[in-house]
């Protein structure tokens, strides 16, 4: 059994990287605009369906559908942000919960109407199937691909936030929107940009997750708890915090299920409560 620990750890990292990709957008939305957007999973689902339709009906190869999913998420995010979300930034968190849950219910029903209740098949290209032997350990090819893509995205995100002017503007707005506005930063545009980016990332995450999570209309509700876990444990608004939290939760969830399947579910929930109580601000407070 212990022989496969590296394999299990790798699975955890792959699972964590998927959680990160989908929830990083939510983390920034909640951190930047402190808007509790429970409908964030719906953007991931939209990305998933765009990828599934492109692949199954239009015959576009899987890898090529990823940018499409990213764009679809961005467009959906941009439209919804300007039409609906923008009016609710100053509303109470409870109104935001009511609004986003309502939106989620609509997205679930709409997806059922258009795509039917069943789940979408995805046919991965051959080079992503099966296993690859790396340093004596069998690693899932698709999971390797996942970890690679997500690490690239994470690096790009962290670098752009740290290095570029736009990144600085976003970080300023995250810390204090009023002060940032005082400096002449058009916080409204920054919100829109970030929300769109967050939705696009989530859509990309949705497309990448079909193979692991499966894709059916109830996706946004089914994994809502996992996305919230990452955001709150990681500390909303922090990319590094979300990355750390995703990895911790991913690894421990997989390890828990492998070694102690009977109490597997408790591991995650117990961990979340413990982490939250240790540092209410989440890992971001620790990571700083």
């Amino acid at each position, binding site marked *: 059994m212990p022989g496969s620990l590296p394999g299990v750890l790798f699975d955890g990292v792959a699972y964590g990287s998927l959680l990160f990709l989908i929830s990083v957008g939510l983390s920034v939305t*909640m951190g930047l605009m402190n808007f*509790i957007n429970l409908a964030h999973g719906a953007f991931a689902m939209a990305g998933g369906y765009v990828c599934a339709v492109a692949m199954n009906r239009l015959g576009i190869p899987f890898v090529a559908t990823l940018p499409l999913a990213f764009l679809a998420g961005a467009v959906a995010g941009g439209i919804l942000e300007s039409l*609906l979300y923008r*009016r*609710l930034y100053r*509303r109470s*968190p*409870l*109104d935001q*919960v*009511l*609004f986003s*849950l*309502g*939106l*989620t*219910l*609509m*997205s*679930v*029903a*709409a997806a*059922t*109407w258009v795509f039917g209740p069943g789940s979408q098949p995805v046919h991965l290209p051959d080079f992503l199937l099966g296993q690859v032997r790396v340093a004596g350990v069998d690693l899932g090819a698709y999971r390797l691909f996942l970890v690679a893509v997500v690490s690239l995205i994470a690096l790009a995100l962290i670098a752009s936030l740290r290095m570029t002017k736009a990144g600085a503007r976003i970080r300023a707005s995250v810390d204090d929107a009023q002060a940032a506005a005082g400096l002449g930063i058009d916080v409204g545009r920054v919100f829109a940009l970030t929300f769109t980016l967050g939705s696009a990332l989530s859509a990309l995450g949705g497309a990448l997750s079909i193979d692991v999570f499966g894709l059916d209309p109830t996706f946004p*509700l089914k994994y809502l*708890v996992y996305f*919230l*876990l990452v955001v*709150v*444990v990681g500390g*909303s608004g922090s990319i590094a915090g979300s990355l750390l939290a995703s990895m911790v939760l991913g690894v421990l969830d997989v390890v828990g299920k492998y070694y102690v399947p*009977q*109490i597997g*579910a*408790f591991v995650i*929930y*117990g961990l*979340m*409560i413990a982490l*939250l*109580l240790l540092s*209410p601000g989440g890992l971001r407070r620790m990571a700083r």
Partner: protein
Amino acid sequence: MSAAGRVPDARWRPAELVFWAAAVAVYFVFPHHLVLASQILITGLFALSLDLILGYAGIVSLGHAAMFGSGAYAAGLLAHHGWGEPVSGLLAGGAAGAALAFATSFVALRGGDLTRLMVTLGIGLMAYEVANQAASITGGVDGLSDVAMGKLLGLFAFDLGGRTAYVYSLAVLFAVFCLSRRIVNSPFGLSLRGIRDRSARMPALGAPVSLRLTAVYTVAGGIAGIAGALLAQTTQFVGLETLGFSRSADLLIMLVLGGAGWLYGGMVGAAAFLVAQDLLSGMNPVYWQFWLGLLLVLAVFFVPGGIVGTLAGAQLRRLEARR
């Protein structure tokens, strides 16, 4: 020199009497819909308990179903093992809910809104898992069946049409509502509203904040347990869903839809939500959730502060404008 100065008192306003008269009238006007009506009353009682902690003490919870479910299982197990007397089952349910609330209050009440949201969510999910793992006792996913109820007060059996269930639920709801009304209008209630508005200031007034929150959280847990017991007794079945995440999430939606902080918001929200759900799913069994979602989104834009919030708020503003 206006000697006015309104102070919280227990006087019944005319609008309240109309509300309760309507609740009694439902028994006669809708004889065939009493099963749905009693489930609305039970959900209203459950929403009342969330209103106590959210509307009055500012405690956000996404796992309130844990207390509801523990009350349902307590009453269900009692009846399952032969003790079918309803009222004592109800008290057992209340005690179970209060006990679980007290035990988890040390964890659930720390940190800000977002932390509380997630910790209570975690507690709810763990309660669900415990009940699922303890399948030998709770029946797990299959649920606890043959919850054999004795006659209410030894006189009224639980009939098929839901008549006894409705009267029983209404009586319990009204009793607990009066108790809540007292709590909310008492000095204790006033201190809760202080904690909700600015808990940081309360210690400077001499208030032991965490003790107060634990007290109201436990009382609310007891009320949620009673609501759970009521559902177990009137449907004579206890499923895992009494602890489920969607029950807590729907509850939060109903309270916000109705308007938190007015005691009536939970009940009005529950009635609106469940009636809409029943009608919509009757019309279109597969896609009704779309229209329900739309209803919620529209409510946020056009009925800010919830149904009761908008009505009562308007009256309050008229009062202040006239001054």
